[in-house]
């Protein structure tokens, strides 16, 4: 079995196979490859950094348990499977929180600015962080049904048919919500004059 040196190009399927055979490095690769997308999906739903961290851990604990006890279904794709677990756990949490009286945290705003990013650098990195935090904040403030479709389609990769089935609406309604989410996002970005400088984001 392969040891510590695993190529970056290795597929998720192969990594899962290695992990099933006891190779922890395979699992580490999977986690590091997909952690940002999974964490972002959770964060955009629960809107709280610390809750998102807890849910991310719960998601991967479930992954570990499934794989190590032979319950993982190899016919499916790893990332969509994990993203759906993450989505469901985040929604469950979100529902529980919504049932409770609203609690306003004193440092609510600072959370957005204190998040960690995949890459660290100096001044340009700070500008990028500020813009990205703003966009993230705009997504968080979208109407629930629009944010839900945007997360399901763009970050989780569900088709509009799957979203329609899951949310109990027609495909056209799901598409319309996505369209409005993008329109609202665009409107807010323009209103706040937020633009991505091509020096930071080359095409």
């Amino acid at each position, binding site marked *: 079995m392969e040891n510590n040196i695993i190529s970056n190009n290795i597929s998720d399927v192969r990594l899962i196979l290695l992990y099933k055979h006891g190779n922890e490095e395979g699992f580490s690769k999977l986690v590091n490859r997909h*952690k940002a997308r999974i964490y972002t999906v959770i*964060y955009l739903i629960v809107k709280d950094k610390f809750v998102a961290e807890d849910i991310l851990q719960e998601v991967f604990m479930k992954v*570990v348990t499934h794989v190590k*006890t032979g319950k993982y279904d190899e016919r499916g794709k790893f990332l969509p499977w994990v993203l759906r677990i993450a989505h469901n756990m985040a929604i469950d949490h979100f529902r529980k929180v919504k049932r409770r009286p609203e609690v306003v945290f004193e440092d609510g705003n600072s959370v957005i600015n204190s998040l*960690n990013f995949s890459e660290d650098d100096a001044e340009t990195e700070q500008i990028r962080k500020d813009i990205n935090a703003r*966009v993230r904040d705009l*997504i968080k403030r979208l109407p629930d049904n629009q944010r839900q479709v945007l997360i399901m389609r763009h970050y989780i990769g569900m*088709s509009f048919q799957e979203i329609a089935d899951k949310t109990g609406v027609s495909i056209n309604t799901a598409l319309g919500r996505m*369209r409005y989410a993008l329109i609202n*996002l665009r409107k807010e970005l323009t209103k706040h004059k937020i633009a991505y400088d091509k020096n930071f984001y080359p095409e």
Partner: protein
Amino acid sequence: MIKTFTRNEMIRFFYNEMTDDESTEFKRVLNENPGFRNEYSDFLSNLKNLDKIMLAPPKRVIKSILDFSKHFDQSKERV
């Protein structure tokens, strides 16, 4: 009349949810209609924002996940 597409159709094209015929027609119009091409390009730049906001969780969280895996006791799960 110059053929064009709606925002919903742009979304379906972007996410690869059109039929082959629809997709071929979309690409044809994209090639032949500069106005529509600009509109689609504008639409794309908005969508690209969504990919730039990924967050990385703190290292301690990842360490905790990897530790959980390393010390996972399979026997306790098989009840």
